[in-house]
């Protein structure tokens, strides 16, 4: 395990003023280490897969289909899915379609505040390759350059049925222990940060750790 107090291995937090630097930690994120016994890890994964709590952050048009999903007709509570108002309690971040640069900044903040293990589902065609906003000056084109994505549900809009299917696919993936998005984020942290800072020009927040 890396020692976060080692000066060679801390974050610069160069976007913050000196005063603010005292308020935020500069430790790097740590990768999730599975339980040494496989049966215990499998059990943990089974539990995680059946209590997916979604962060209530409608980042784009996709949010409109989350409401039918969560209410009486499609009733995602059947799958152990519930909406949570705060990132600290949620494990799934559903990116509702296109992300403008201003929203991307908030997405990064919310994502980093989420406790691991955490999973990201992208809705629609826009996070994959810009979709119909491929030439827009304010929407990013490839979402996985900035945040690791575990699952894409494509379409415009993906129907609630597609959302149900993608939740089931995510559960399957988690149970198989293949959802390593958060770990990829830790391992390639510098690459992700460089990409994020390339599009977010006014970086006035800590590099990690909220």
């Amino acid at each position: 395990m890396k020692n976060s107090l080692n000066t060679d291995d801390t974050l610069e937090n160069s976007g913050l003023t000196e005063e603010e630097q005292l308020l935020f930690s500069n430790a790097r994120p740590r990768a999730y280490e599975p339980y040494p016994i496989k049966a215990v890890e499998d059990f943990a994964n089974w539990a995680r897969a059946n209590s997916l709590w979604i962060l209530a952050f409608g980042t784009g048009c996709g949010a409109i289909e989350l409401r039918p999903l969560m209410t009486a007709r499609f009733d995602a509570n059947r799958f152990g899915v519930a909406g949570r108002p705060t990132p600290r309690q949620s494990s799934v971040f559903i990116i509702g379609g296109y992300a403008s640069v201003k929203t991307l900044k908030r997405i990064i903040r919310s994502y980093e505040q989420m406790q691991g293990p955490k999973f990201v589902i992208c809705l629609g065609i826009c996070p994959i390759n810009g979709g119909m906003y491929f030439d827009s000056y304010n929407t990013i084109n490839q979402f996985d350059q900035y945040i690791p994505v575990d699952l894409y549900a494509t379409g415009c809009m993906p129907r609630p049925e597609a959302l149900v299917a993608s939740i089931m696919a995510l559960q399957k993936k988690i149970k198989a222990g293949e959802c390593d998005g958060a770990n990829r984020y830790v391992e390639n942290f510098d690459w992700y940060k460089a990409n994020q800072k390339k599009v977010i020009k006014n970086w006035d927040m800590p590099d990690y750790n909220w």
Partner: protein
Amino acid sequence: MNDLMERLQRDFGVDDITVRKPALTTFRVKKDSAETLIRELRDREGYTHLNFMTCIDYIEDGIFTLVYMLHNYDKKLSLGVHVDISRENEDMVSIHTLWAQAWTYQRELREMYGINFPGSPRLEEDFCLEGWDDIPPMRREFDTKEFSEQRFGHREGRHSEEPRDHMKVELYPNRGGDEK
């Protein structure tokens, strides 16, 4: 309507009066008398509703045309007030004292075109963009596609067609895409 236009022509020297449809007339007014004219229309003529204000970039003539759309609820008539300002000398009289929503529009125009409205509140605050470091995006010389490709990039393997050429080939395959 004609009386009003005659009076405006006499008092403010408006020109380019065009009846676009029965309910919409547009005219052009000089920059200096624009604010007085709009105030007069609001207070005396019952054009109490500001539908919107916006800007058209005529890059070929080197001007911005500001458009103020006013509406009279009683007569059910709309007036489009056009004001030409230079693209370089981008100052315009602010109308934030006339309508509460006007400063929001002016903030947007400041961000999207770079037009300055001296005295308008919160003008320098970000409206839609954050940390923008290029020329204002709604100006005609700003190429959004090029910007997007440089800043955000595209996934390899993306393939796109110019719709017109593509459809010609699709519709007239036997003639090599020639529709004649």
